[in-house]
């Protein structure tokens, strides 16, 4: 297959562009951006479809035209199995037609391509710089493999994929690793599995547990049966034990009955006896009680001694009581009298004190009366003196008043003088003012001025007195007149001052003052005279008073006593009257006292019987009265006791009668029963009762022993029976004890069994491990498929490598030799690897070669392969500047090889290498730089657009 024509409708920068291409080598020369890559992409797109998101393996860019042109174009393919065909592909349609325009089926292209897809195409038919550069990145040990793989189509890529799988699977699992996911999963699985295995051993235990449970159950059942049997036996024994006691009692009752005799006794005989016995008893008690009471009462009566005395002295007692009433009155009177006497004494004492005399010194006789008269005389003398004294004092007072008046007048006059003198001083000051020298000043001025003017005029004017002279004269006259006037006025003032009336008045007042002074001096003399007279009278009064005192003492009064009272009221007389009264009262008292004494002697017998310590009359009276009351009460009590004694006596008699009755009944009873006494009777009664009791008991015993008679008869002793019973109980206890451990064992087993039966953990674990298994399977699947895929690749390739095509080898040798100018002559390919042979027959391993030689080797193998694949499919080779790094010599040889290669193959060589351009003939090349400059402009402008929009965007982002 060859590409004859590229007809581009619109693809990237290319619009409506058509290229005719050589069958052999076609060089596309152009600088960067000239559209080389776009053209290559166009070819790919036409053959394999437009680049899409999904298919972008080797086409990084999309090439939709920018200006709305149709996207796509068409290719004219020649040398296909269908002849020459057009492949037309746009964004709207895809057609395959013959050169003549006949439509072919769409899958025609697929057939033409022989199953080759874009990836493979790129792998096999496209060279670029990258392919060669990759060589340097391959490890020394891998490079041999790598070259080997070129022998098979695109195997370098396959190997890379296989390596990737290996890496991925190693990441998932490694046999010796621990932490790889699959390894981890495995150990998780193992721990789960072990866990389950442990649980399974538990399950084996379950069966044995069930068996053990059954075993225990059986043992327990047996033991329980044994216990039940023992229980039954024990119950029987127990009954026997209980009844054996009864059996014994029955035997005893029988024995007792045998020896008891029954006596006929009237019905209720014993009750009758008891009742009457009780009655006798009660009556006896009553008698004893009353006798005792009687004794007590009589004793009580005897103890009442006053009663006798009172009964013996009835008459005397009556007399005493009457007398005592009288004495009570007398006593009251007596006490009153004594009180009166006391009062009188006090009155007398008071009178003496009030009368200011000493009672023992005064007397009531004539001598005393005379002495009183003497006192009267002294008193009148004293009164006279006092009157005189009063008169003199009045005179003195009048004089003193008069003098005071004179002195007042004098003072008023002095005040007036002082006032006037003040007025005079004022006047002087006024004068000084109104006659001041200052008043003259103006006048003098005028005078002087006038004189001066006249003088000047006089001396200066010879021509007669001028007007100024006249005027000066006038002024001088005026001044003179004024001075004169003022002087006269001053004189008038002086005169007025000297003739003032005040001076006269002062003189007059001074004369009056002298007059007053003399009069008061005369009054002072009078006053002094009266003073001396008063002193004389006072002395006289003093002597009279002394005389009076002496008198008072003489008549028995206190010296300080008031003579006037003594003279006017006579206190001594009253005193003596009171004294007489007292004597009267004292007589009365004596009379009453006598009466009382008499009563005292009368009541002596009473006091002897009822003595009293207090001897006062009043106490005695009360004592007598109280004694009398007590005695009367005693008499009453005595009477009451007597009555009770009578009562008791009656009761005693009555009870004695009752006793007799009862005794009669009893003795009758005894006779009937043939009993000697009560003891015998009672014994007989109790015997009867015992017999009845025993008989009753025996019937009861018989009932209780019903059915056991024989067994009971066989019992030897109670001890033996009890021993049997105890031994049974012991046995039962032991059996029960034996049961306990089995119960425990059974409970334990049950718990364990229950635990196992209800433990769902196992189910859970089994499900868990199943899930884990699935997880594991999933991982194993993942690991496995990649591993297998890896092996699949390796082995598929190895298979290819193992059987290299001989022609291809030969071709490769040729190309390699040409490229290296014969330095290397042969490429040796076999299973173990690849070696190259130098012209010197030395073999080299690929890693021993230089980078340049490696690249040449690569190209040689690739080209040889393509050459070889010719049989299957012949496609044009696309070379995209693969050799730019070759030196000039290598390039030359390279281009030679290409030239030769293109004889059988179409080669589309895209380059900007100038050497390439020059190496090939002009008809072989298309200079892209020279085509359609306008488009370049377009593109530039577009790029500018982009740039602008980008800068714009950046700005915006800023």
């Amino acid at each position, binding site marked *: 297959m060859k590409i004859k024509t590229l007809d581009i409708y619109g693809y990237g920068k290319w619009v409506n562009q058509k290229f005719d291409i050589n069958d052999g080598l076609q060089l596309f020369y152009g600088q960067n951006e000239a559209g080389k890559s776009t053209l290559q992409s166009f070819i790919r797109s036409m053959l394999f479809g437009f680049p899409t998101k999904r298919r972008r*393996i080797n086409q990084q860019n999309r090439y939709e035209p920018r200006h709305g042109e149709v996207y796509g174009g068409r290719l004219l393919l020649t040398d296909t199995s269908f002849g020459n065909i057009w492949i037309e592909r746009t964004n709207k349609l895809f057609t395959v037609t013959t050169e003549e325009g006949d439509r072919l089926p769409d899958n025609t292209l697929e057939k033409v391509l*022989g*199953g*080759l*897809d*874009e*990836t*493979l195409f790129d792998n096999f038919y496209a060279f670029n710089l990258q392919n060669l550069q990759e060589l340097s990145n391959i490890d020394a040990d891998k490079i041999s493999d790598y070259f080997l793989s070129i022998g*098979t*189509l695109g195997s370098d*890529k*396959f190997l890379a994929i296989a390596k990737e799988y290996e890496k991925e699977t190693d990441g998932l*699992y490694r*046999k010796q690793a621990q932490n790889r996911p*699959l390894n981890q999963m*495995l*150990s998780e*699985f*193992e721990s789960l*599995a072990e866990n389950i295995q442990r649980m*399974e051993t538990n*399950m084996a235990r*379950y069966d044995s547990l069930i068996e053990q449970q059954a075993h225990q159950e059986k043992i327990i059942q047996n033991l329980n049966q044994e216990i039940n049997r023992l229980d039954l036996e024990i119950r029987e024994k127990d009954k026997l034990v209980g009844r054996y006691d009864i059996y014994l009692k029955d035997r005893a009752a029988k024995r007792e009955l045998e020896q008891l005799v029954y006596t006929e006794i009237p019905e209720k005989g014993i009750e009758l006896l008891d009742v009457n016995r009780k009655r006798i008893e009660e009556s006896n008690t009553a008698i004893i009680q009353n006798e005792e009471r009687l004794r007590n009462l009589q004793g009580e009566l005897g103890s009442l001694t006053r009663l006798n005395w009172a009964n013996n002295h009835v008459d005397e007692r009556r007399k005493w009581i009457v007398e005592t009433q009288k004495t009570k009155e007398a006593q009251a009177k007596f006490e009153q009298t004594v009180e009166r006497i006391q009062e009188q004494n006090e009155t007398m004492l008071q009178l003496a004190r009030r009368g200011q005399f000493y009672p023992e010194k005064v007397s009531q006789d004539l001598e005393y009366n005379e002495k009183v008269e003497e006192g009267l005389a002294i008193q009148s003398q004293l009164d006279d003196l006092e009157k005189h004294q009063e008169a003199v004092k009045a005179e003195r007072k009048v004089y003193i008043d008069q003098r005071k008046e004179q002195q007042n007048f004098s003072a008023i006059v002095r005040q007036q003088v002082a006032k006037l003198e003040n007025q005079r001083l004022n006047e002087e000051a006024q004068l000084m003012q109104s006659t001041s020298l200052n008043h003259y000043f103006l006048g003098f001025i005028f005078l002087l001025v006038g004189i001066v003017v006249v003088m000047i005029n006089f001396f200066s004017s010879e021509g007669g007195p001028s007007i100024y002279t006249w005027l000066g004269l006038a002024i001088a006259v005026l001044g003179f007149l004024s001075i004169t006037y003022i002087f006269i006025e001053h004189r008038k003032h002086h005169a007025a001052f000297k003739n003032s009336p005040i001076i006269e008045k002062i003189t007059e007042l001074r004369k009056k003052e002298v007059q007053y002074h003399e009069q008061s001096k005369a009054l002072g003399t009078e006053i002094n005279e009266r003073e001396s007279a008063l002193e004389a009278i006072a002395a006289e009064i003093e002597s009279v008073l002394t005389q009076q005192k002496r008198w008072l003492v003489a008549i028995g009064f206190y010296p300080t006593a008031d003579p006037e009272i003594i003279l006017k009221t006579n206190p001594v007389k009253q005193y003596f009257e009171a004294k007489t009264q007292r004597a009267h009262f004292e007589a009365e008292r004596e009379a009453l006292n006598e009466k009382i004494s008499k009563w005292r002697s009368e009541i002596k017998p009473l006091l002897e019987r009822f003595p009293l310590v207090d001897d006062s009359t009043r106490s005695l009276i009360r004592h007598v009265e109280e004694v009398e009351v007590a005695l009367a009460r005693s008499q009453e009590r005595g009477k009451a006791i007597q009555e009770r004694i009578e009562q008791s006596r009656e009761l005693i008699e009555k009870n004695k009668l009752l006793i007799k009755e009862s005794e009669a009944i009893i003795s009758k009873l005894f006779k009937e029963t043939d009993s000697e006494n009560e003891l015998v009777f009672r014994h007989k009664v109790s015997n009867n009762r015992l017999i009845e009791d025993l008989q009753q008991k025996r019937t009861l015993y018989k009932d209780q022993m019903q059915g056991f008679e024989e067994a009971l008869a066989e019992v030897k002793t109670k001890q033996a029976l009890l021993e049997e019973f105890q031994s049974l109980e012991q046995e039962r206890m032991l059996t029960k004890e034996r049961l306990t451990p089995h119960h425990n064992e059974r409970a334990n087993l049950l718990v364990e069994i229950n635990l196992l*039966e*209800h*433990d*769902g953990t*196992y*189910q*859970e674990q*089994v*499900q868990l*491990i*199943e*899930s884990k*298994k*699935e*997880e*594991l*399977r*999933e991982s*194993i*699947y993942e690991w*496995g*498929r990649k*591993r*297998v*895929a890896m*092996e*699949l*690749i390796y*082995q*598929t*390739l190895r*298979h*290819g490598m193992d*059987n290299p*095509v001989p022609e291809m080898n030969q071709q490769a040798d040729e190309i390699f030799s040409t490229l290296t100018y014969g330095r290397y002559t042969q490429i040796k390919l076999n299973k173990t690897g690849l070696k190259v042979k130098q012209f010197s027959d030395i073999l080299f391993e690929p890693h021993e070669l230089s980078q340049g030689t490696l690249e040449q080797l690569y190209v040689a193998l690739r080209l040889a392969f393509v050459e070889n*694949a010719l049989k*299957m499919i012949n496609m044009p080779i696309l070379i995209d500047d693969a050799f730019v790094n070759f030196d000039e010599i290598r390039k030359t040889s390279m281009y030679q090889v290409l030239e030769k290669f293109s004889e059988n193959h179409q080669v589309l060589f895209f380059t900007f290498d100038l050497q390439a351009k020059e190496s090939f003939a002009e008809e072989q090349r298309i200079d892209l730089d020279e085509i359609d400059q306008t488009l370049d402009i377009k593109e530039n402008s577009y790029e500018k657009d982009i740039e602008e929009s980008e800068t714009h965007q950046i700005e915006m982002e800023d």
Partner: protein
Amino acid sequence: MKIMHVADLHLDSPFKGMMKQSKVIHKQLIQAPYQAFERCVSIAINQEVDFFLIVGDVYNAEKQTIYAQNFFMNQLTRLEKAGIPVVLNYGNHDYLRADKKSPIYPNNVYAFLSEDVEQFDLTSKNQETVRFYGFSYRQKWIKERKTQEFPLNPGETDYTIGLLHGALADGQGNDAGNYAPFTVQELVSKQYDYWALGHIHQAGVLNAGPLIQYSGTIQGRHRNELGDKGAYIVELKQNSPAKNKFVSLAPILWQSATIECHQDWQANDIVQQIEQVIANYRSEAEASTQSQILTITLSNGQRLNQELQEQIEKGELSFAFETSGLEVDGPFVVVAKLYLTQNMTLDAFQYDENLNQSFHAVSQRLIEGNAYDDIMKDLFQHSIIQNWLPELKDDKELKHSIIESAQQLMIQTIGFDIKEDTHED
């Protein structure tokens, strides 16, 4: 006369093929077979059946868990209290080992203990006499044709019923011969009134007159045990065909769904589709109160882009059917597994005949030769797998899926343009 026919309880058998689940679901899974059987017993009591037949495989293994045993005993006791006789035999899973005694069952239980065919004569509530023939497994396999030992219906009772735990000889898998194989014709020829079969987990009527049928398991435990599971209530009447009623028991159902992938689908499209499927089953679950475990197959996975396929394979889409939200009791819907299948040819190297041959040779060696074992031995010889999971080595399903997936993976990753199966065109 009413008979409850149930088989293959597999009480202590876990759910297989489910990754780690939420606690609630985990609990429900464990309880599911128990719930199912408890329900079965309740229904039997309510319906007042005359006989309760359990045709083998009460437990999953000859070594039974105590919990399961205890549970089973309790249920038998329930039936005893209701006065319903139980006739049971042992299946290949819970075969009665020679060294083990049969457990002590309640008095209403009639268990076939011998590997020889035995009989029980019982009387129904209406005083009809019934004879039951049956045998039990005393070892894992019974290769003899036990049908030969069942006698021809002697007609001594009103009804004759056979209990048989075994596999239909014609085409029920390769190892049918290990489980007392029989043919329908053989059974029909015995002229019994009813054949109660066990062993196959899918309920199914093999013959209508006389009625011969598997009751299936009571609870699906694996994605291959799809749909509703339960028991049969069979009503027999003299001179008239048997009435047959299926009773749903399983609280959890396995379901499968397929989603056809489309060319331009992205991850969210697939998630949406899965959510739709889940929603559909959720309404189902809510209506029937039966939880649903889904296996979803994404077919034509090659139509999805490479990256997305990788994501699905790695389980990165599982967030769409996370069960974490389902923390409440009650019916749930979970996706147990998401398969991605590709319908395409494996002619990856058709451009290079040499390589193509090589690829096919290697594939062949993987499938038939020991290449698979060589590759996987690195993993399968791990001590843990050798100890606990030796069966993985011989897991054909695993091998098949790994190889297939590996091929697809390789082709995809390498980036061949995928061609869908030609037969689709």
